């Protein structure tokens, strides 16, 4: 039904950026939760699994954008994290903060990328921004 409008929003980078924006947002929530629980006994840190980005890259290499649209990121317990304290808590404050800041920067970049495409479309349609 919306075949005409789907083509308008089908640029590769736009779709990828939108999907990554979702993932970055989710990752931020997971990292925020990790930092909130930095002093909770026995807490295990959570993060996005690595195979999300692997899957995404694979789907893009295959030009399978239907698959790109169907990929949903999830946060899971990080099995590789080692406990840093006697009580079994696996959150390392400095590393977690660093990861959170880098993730936030990714989010800013992706917002700009998505916004740029939308501004471009508006410019093309109206002749001005």
């Amino acid at each position: 039904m919306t075949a005409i409008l789907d083509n308008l929003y089908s640029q590769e980078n736009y779709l990828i950026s939108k999907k990554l924006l979702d993932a970055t947002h989710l990752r931020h929530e997971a990292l925020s939760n990790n930092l909130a629980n930095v002093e909770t006994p026995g807490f295990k840190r959570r993060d996005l699994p690595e195979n999300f980005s692997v899957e995404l890259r694979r789907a893009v290499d295959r030009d399978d954008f239907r698959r790109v649209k169907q990929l949903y990121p999830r946060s899971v317990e990080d099995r590789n994290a080692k406990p840093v304290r006697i009580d079994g808590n696996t959150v390392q404050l400095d590393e977690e903060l660093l990861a959170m800041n880098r993730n936030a920067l990714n989010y800013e970049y992706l917002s700009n990328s998505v916004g740029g495409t939308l501004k471009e479309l508006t410019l093309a349609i109206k002749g001005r921004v």
Partner: protein
Amino acid sequence: MDAVSSLPSLNELLRQNPNLNPQKFSPKLNSESQLAGGLSSPSAVPLIDKTTSVDRVTAPGFADMFQKFVKGVDYKKKVSAKETQDLILGRSDNIHEAVVKSEEAKVAFNLMIEVRNKLVDSYKELMRMQV
């Protein structure tokens, strides 16, 4: 918006030019007529079947496509409204989803308005031609 609404609506264009009528209208077009600034109103436009076989091939295709287009824009608006509602009611916390969907709906809507403007302009251009 005043300059836009003073132009003849597509409704009047269709009435004056029966050759542009498709064979049948879908009743759903009524709900989108507000959206498209008076694009079409099936009850007001008489179906005159004086078209030649050539006209009948090209004209329904175009109106059909435009109808699908309007439905698509309406769908995008609905999606954006739902996402916004979820956000403001606290059912969702994806602010980027709400913003992106609302911007997409806006762009689609702009596209529809510009296409409509172009159609009206070309009609006026046609009417200006000396016969």
